């Protein structure tokens, strides 16, 4: 898994490439935690180059999403491939997270 981070205006934009699983999820979890440390933070995670996500990956996304809810922060996910979307659907997560088709839409939704 590779992770890229940049600041786009007030939004922290993360991009995750490869596999989000028990080995790599803690790395994303740590990035999300620091990006969302400030109340009112806006974070986008682009999954356009994500191969798959296992339950360990969903765990860190769930923790970050709960944290966003509690601290008036925004977390928007984007770029789900058909495979990744299917996994979100299997886990019942499509309605739980804010998800947009493209990174551009996610950046708009988060700002």
């Amino acid at each position, binding site marked *: 898994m590779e992770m890229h981070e940049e600041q786009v205006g007030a939004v922290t934009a993360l991009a995750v490439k490869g*596999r989000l*699983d*028990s*080995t790599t999820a803690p790395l994303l979890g740590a990035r999300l935690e620091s990006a969302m440390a400030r109340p009112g933070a806006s974070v986008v995670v682009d999954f356009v180059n994500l*191969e*798959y996500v*296992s*339950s*360990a990956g*969903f*765990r860190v996304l*769930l923790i970050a*999403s*709960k944290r966003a*809810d509690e601290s008036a922060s925004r977390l928007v996910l984007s770029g789900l491939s*058909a*495979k990744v*979307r*299917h*996994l979100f*659907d*299997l*886990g*019942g997560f499509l309605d*739980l997270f804010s998800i947009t088709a493209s990174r551009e839409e996610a950046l708009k939704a988060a700002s």
Partner: protein
Amino acid sequence: MRRAVVSITRAEGAVEEVQASLDGLAAHHAVPPDALCDMQIALDEALTNILTHGFDDGEPHRIEVTLAIEPTTIRAEIEDDCAAFDPLSAAAPDLTASLKDRRVGGLGVHFMRRLMSEVSYSRIGPRNRLVLRRALETGGTEDGNA
């Protein structure tokens, strides 16, 4: 080479080693990406369960993972000498709970069941044996793909 065996005695790096072994086999036999992806997820879930719950008693343990590419399926056999644990007995997760009440417990087994064509568990003497099988053709899961 259609088979690979990986022995695990410590948690650190174990899942990565099994994944790399499966990647190597899959590359050799032109396994479709969808089937490989599903098996990698199921292995992550199964091994994480054993390493988290089976290896936490302070005793030395060993997991043996046999990976095989067969004409129509990928098969993984996972045997461990940890306390008896049938992952298939775990309660199904509530996939409709609100964000506040949502838990990830049980999700790994749910993914295993839904992504594999077949999952079976047996206790043989002092060993747990979990067999995962994923049909090689696309959309091989019995519940159907979206």
